[in-house]
């Protein structure tokens, strides 16, 4: 029995050396084409951080044009458009925001959540030695690279990168004549999205199998940390929503390449080209696209919600308030998330009765979010709050998610959406949920699991400075967007000041651009801290945060096969401040003797 019961909760006694002895792998197998979920997770993390730079730089290009329209754009301008004196042409602006969103969504947010954290954390938190299908896992990472290649190369083909927005609505995206970026660039874009899709699909099948079938003994479903629940539900969302996008993508690709006409009504004369033939349906694409992409926005936040729940509980030193409601609300968000996609199409010419139905379901999705928000506050209430960097970022998540979520209510109200649809109000909304919530959750997660990844801590002070600067920069950049939206400024405009009623908004846009640059510089702190600490950070043992879940019983960093002692789980992951023990935490694997159990009668729980 003693082997099942690790008697060293603090874990300082063993460092993970003993785990390394079995396998001798070449460098390439170990670090490049590795099948070890931890290495793959770290590969995903580094790649996506790199892509964050790319996406962020594109965003700064967008911001430049909005603040200083038709002025020489720094770096890009002289480099690419020297003939126009460094002034970017309007179609380049459309490419900038299209590729900004594409990179951020398909190459940063989705892979950093599912790919990086999902990979690293899932087997560790459920007590498995690896993923169910390690080779598939490796492939899932390497399928990212063709996508990156396609996206990046699209800038250099005739006509330039895709320019139909990340939503790629036909006919703009279906007809090569429609816009400069609708030629080869759009085709490459579609192929890129297909590869990302295949990558995610392999990942999600893997995660589902792993979570269903490879949990450690005693790890019942309701003893899983919320991170695992969130990853599980995200994987389900991916698995069942993504194939629809892939199929739609193929149809659009065929429309472009071989002349099918799923999304092309006949008789259109686009840019003086031949009239189109066929009798396809433009709105069909929007339905299929949002059938995936609305669930996708939850794919982009649920894992962060799970991670934040873990961190808030850990650093409040208090059990997660309402664990089961938290889990149910995650599922409810996912379930409802499948039937609200039409709220992106209120103004699209969709059947108005359908619009009403979608409005109702969209309103209802605020409920599980409310439950989550209040439970986070409930967890903090009465806690013993430690303001570590992960905790600060998690608090940033909660505070920003509320803003982003509440602005969602305006848009969910159809009549209000008549006015604010496709204005900066929308842009404000989704940056609040995507950057404000998810990215802060991710920043928190990076600081939180860094010691497990590398056995070292990230610098606390630098982390705090990064948080403060990002938080201020973020809010100064995006909060004013709500006001721009109310002022009626449409999104995707290269030069809004062309319209007299918007001309006076230029100074505000300049302020936002300066803030965005501040926020961009702040990210250097994160990167510096990340790579510096990887080699020079303070060394730590297994459980630097005194946390409960399984990963903290493994060595830091865990060797191949993760656990030196097969973990057995005796309780849920949030038993902080339990009266049963002296310390204020009680790991899931720690076995208590009957005497210990009897010493204090635990208070009635919510389960």
């Amino acid at each position, binding site marked *: 029995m003693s082997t099942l019961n690790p008697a060293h909760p603090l874990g300082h006694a063993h460092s993970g050396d003993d785990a390394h002895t079995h396998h001798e792998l070449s460098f390439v197998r170990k670090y490049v084409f590795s099948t070890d979920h931890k290495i793959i997770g770290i590969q995903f993390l580094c790649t996506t951080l790199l892509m964050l730079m790319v996406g962020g730089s594109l965003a700064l290009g967008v911001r430049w044009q909005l603040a200083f329209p038709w002025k020489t754009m720094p770096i890009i301008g002289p480099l690419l458009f020297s003939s126009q004196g460094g002034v970017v042409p309007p179609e380049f602006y459309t490419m900038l925001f299209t590729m900004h969103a594409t990179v951020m969504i398909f190459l940063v947010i989705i892979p950093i959540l599912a790919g990086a954290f999902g990979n690293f954390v899932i087997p560790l938190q459920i007590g498995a030695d690896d993923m169910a299908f390690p080779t598939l896992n490796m492939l899932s990472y390497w399928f990212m690279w063709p996508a990156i290649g396609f996206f990046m190369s699209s800038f250099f083909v005739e006509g330039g990168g895709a320019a139909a927005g990340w939503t790629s609505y036909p006919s703009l995206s279906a007809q090569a004549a429609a816009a400069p970026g609708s030629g080869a660039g759009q085709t490459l874009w579609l192929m890129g999205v297909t590869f990302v899709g295949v990558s995610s699909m392999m990942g999600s099948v893997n995660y589902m199998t792993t979570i269903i*079938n*490879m949990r450690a003994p005693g790890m019942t479903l309701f003893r899983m940390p919320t991170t695992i629940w969130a990853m599980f539900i995200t994987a*389900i969302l991916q698995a*069942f*929503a993504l194939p*629809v996008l892939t199929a739609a993508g193929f149809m659009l690709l065929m429309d472009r390449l071989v002349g099918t006409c799923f999304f092309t*009504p*006949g*008789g*259109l*004369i686009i840019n003086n080209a031949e*009239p189109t*033939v*066929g*009798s*396809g*349906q433009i*709105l*069909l694409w929007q*339905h299929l696209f949002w*059938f995936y992409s609305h669930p996708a926005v939850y794919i982009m936040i649920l894992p962060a919600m799970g991670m934040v729940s873990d961190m808030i509980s850990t650093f409040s030193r208090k059990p997660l308030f309402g664990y089961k409601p938290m889990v149910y609300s995650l599922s409810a968000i996912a379930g409802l998330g*499948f*039937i609200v996609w*039409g709220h992106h199409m209120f103004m699209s*010419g*969709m*059947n*108005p*009765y*359908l619009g009403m139905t979608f409005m109702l379901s969209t309103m209802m999705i605020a409920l599980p979010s409310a439950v989550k928000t209040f439970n986070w506050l409930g967890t903090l209430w009465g806690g013993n709050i430690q303001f570590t960097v992960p905790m600060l970022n998690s608090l940033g998540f909660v505070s920003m998610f509320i803003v982003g979520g509440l602005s969602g209510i305006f848009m969910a109200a159809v009549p209000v959406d008549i006015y604010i649809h496709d204005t900066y109000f929308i842009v404000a909304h989704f940056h609040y949920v995507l950057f404000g919530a998810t990215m802060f959750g991710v920043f928190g997660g990076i600081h939180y699991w860094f010691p497990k990844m590398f056995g070292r801590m990230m610098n606390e002070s630098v982390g705090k400075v990064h948080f403060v600067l990002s938080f201020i920069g973020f809010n100064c950049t995006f909060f004013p967007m709500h006001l721009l939206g109310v002022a009626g400024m449409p999104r995707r405009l290269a030069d809004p000041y062309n319209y007299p009623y918007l001309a006076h908004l230029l100074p505000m846009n300049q302020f936002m651009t300066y803030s965005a640059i501040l926020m961009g510089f702040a990210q250097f702190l994160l990167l510096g801290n990340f790579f510096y600490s990887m080699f020079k950070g303070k060394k730590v043992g297994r459980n630097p945060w005194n946390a409960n879940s399984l990963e903290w019983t493994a060595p830091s960093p865990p060797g191949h096969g993760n656990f030196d002692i097969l973990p057995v789980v005796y309780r849920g992951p949030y038993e902080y401040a339990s009266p049963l023990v002296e310390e204020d935490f009680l790991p899931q694997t720690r076995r208590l003797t009957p005497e210990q159990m009897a010493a204090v009668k635990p208070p009635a729980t919510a389960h």
Partner: protein
Amino acid sequence: MTEDHAATVADHSDAAHHVNYMLVFGALCALTLLSVLADLMGGIEALSNAIGHFNTKLIIGFIVLTVACFKASFVMLYFMHLKFEGKWKFVLLAPTFVLAMALVVTLAAEIAVHYYTFNTPQSAVTASVEHGGSAAPAHAAPAH
């Protein structure tokens, strides 16, 4: 290690349930023949005429799709052994089914029932003004 263990479990369940595959095969063939015949023979036409105002196409469609559903359930239940699997099959397949239906039903409500005037091939109204003539008919007559 889990692989081996589980494989034996699977073997057990297989051995326990013997399916007469030939019977299933026969049923599937018969059903296929039925749907081919439904199309080839004019029998249904006569039937629908007898009943009256029913659309022949609708009846054929209904029959062949029902037959397809039966065939599909035979394949799933016996060939894919779903009949003998544990409860997990419901957990796994129910969401897929619900989602697939949700997508199709919504699309049906939207695309198949046009709320707004739908005109495609779009009459090249403005084009005809410009290019002077050769406009396609505004409302192309259906093929049937």
